[in-house]
């Protein structure tokens, strides 16, 4: 009696969905393990954080272990940088749990083995993550933005000008009390953004308010003038910030003192024939420029 064969004949197996269900279970295990790990790490890291922030005099938030046990092949955990590779997909799937977002790319009903190219940058005034993803459709971005907005610790999400045609760039404005990390893994491909309350909050201490200096332009629409400035100052890696009134400014650098910012401006003026578009300004983690 071939009982096993009999069972297979009787039951129609939805194989694509079955593979997804297994991946989902693996992802859940990974999240649970990660949560245990972070909980254990946070308290111990608090003292180290205080020392780091005070001595560096800038909001330096990242101090957690970079390699952690996950299912699938761990590729990297990062605060700033990029990764991924060309990944054919026809949809994305997002899982949100409180303050963690997991992004899968889906092709032919299955999670892809890799994730599409991405770049991450962090800015501390105002506190935000700048993300660029390749080969994302508008519809997929809409799904992603809506997921990110529902995460604890996210104040705002807005589109910024992407450099490449095949890229979508956006900024995630964070609540001051949240830090983050981005984890990439393959087999299955998974990009996760996890926000967590920083060490000061966990230790029930008040974090010092850090004033950060930077160079900025006037507020503009995301128009031709704005794009031409982006191109002109591309080598300076300008950041795009949405102001309270809805206009956009370009900023360059983040400095611990006004003097450092002035020096940088002088350098810029020398290299760019005056660089009249920029001036020194300042802000804090939870301070969005008015205009």
């Amino acid at each position: 009696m071939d009982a096993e064969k009999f069972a297979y004949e009787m039951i129609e197996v939805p194989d694509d969905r079955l593979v997804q269900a297994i991946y989902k279970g693996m992802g859940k295990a990974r999240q649970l393990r990660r949560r245990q790990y972070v909980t254990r790490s946070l308290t111990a890291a608090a003292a180290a954080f205080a020392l780091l922030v005070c001595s560096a005099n800038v909001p330096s938030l990242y101090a957690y272990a970079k390699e952690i046990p996950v299912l699938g092949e761990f590729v990297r955990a990062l605060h700033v940088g990029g990764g991924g590779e060309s990944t054919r997909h026809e949809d994305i799937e997002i899982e949100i749990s409180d303050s963690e977002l997991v992004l899968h790319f889906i092709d032919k009903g299955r999670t892809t083995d890799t994730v599409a190219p991405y770049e991450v940058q962090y800015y501390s005034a105002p506190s935000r993550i700048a993300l660029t993803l390749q080969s994302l459709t508008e519809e997929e971005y809409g799904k992603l933005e809506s997921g990110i907005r529902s995460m604890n610790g996210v104040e705002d999400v807005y589109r910024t000008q992407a450099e490449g045609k095949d890229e979508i760039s956006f900024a995630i404005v964070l609540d001051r009390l949240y830090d983050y990390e981005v984890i990439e893994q393959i087999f299955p491909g998974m990009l996760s953004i996890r926000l967590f309350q920083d060490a000061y909050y966990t230790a029930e201490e008040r974090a010092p308010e850090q004033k950060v200096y930077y160079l900025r332009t006037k507020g503009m629409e995301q128009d031709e003038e704005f794009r031409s400035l982006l191109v002109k100052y591309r080598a300076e890696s300008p950041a795009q910030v949405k102001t309270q009134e809805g206009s956009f400014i370009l900023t360059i650098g983040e400095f611990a003192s006004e003097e450092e910012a002035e020096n940088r401006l002088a350098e810029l003026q020398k290299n760019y024939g005056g660089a009249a578009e920029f001036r020194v300004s300042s802000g804090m983690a939870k301070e969005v420029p008015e205009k």
Partner: protein
Amino acid sequence: MKRHLGKHEFADKVMENRKRFYCIAYSYVKNEQDALDIISEATCKGLLHLKELDKAEHLVTWMTRIIVNTSIDFIRKNSRTAALPEDSKGYPDDADLRNSQAEEPEREALMDLYNAMDILDPEERTCIVLRYFEAYNFREIAEMLKMPESTVKSRTYRALEKMKQHMTGG
């Protein structure tokens, strides 16, 4: 020698046996989405407790046990199981077994048997699924479920008897 299984080996084995695992879960809930949820949950549990697996070679039976237990939990939580008949006196002893008229079914009877499984309680269903659909012998089922072989036999024959009565309208 004890050899712990790595998470990649675990993933490979689960993928390799996924259809078999799905069939087990489906046999309990008879519903695609519920069976997928059980597989997802069982995969998560398996990974979290991977270090408890004594030998890598036992992964399939170990995962089968997790799927069985997860299925039973699922049924209990969702109250989808048929209750034992009110006149139930529990499981028969060895003497009952020796007198049991229940016979192991032939292949052609399996279809009816499969449908009749709905009247069984989760533990009885486990014995039928593992014995007749997964083709484990009684000793293997007993080891998997960590219970005496006699209990497995008694549950199995009791389940067969219940199904036989159900199918003949008794």
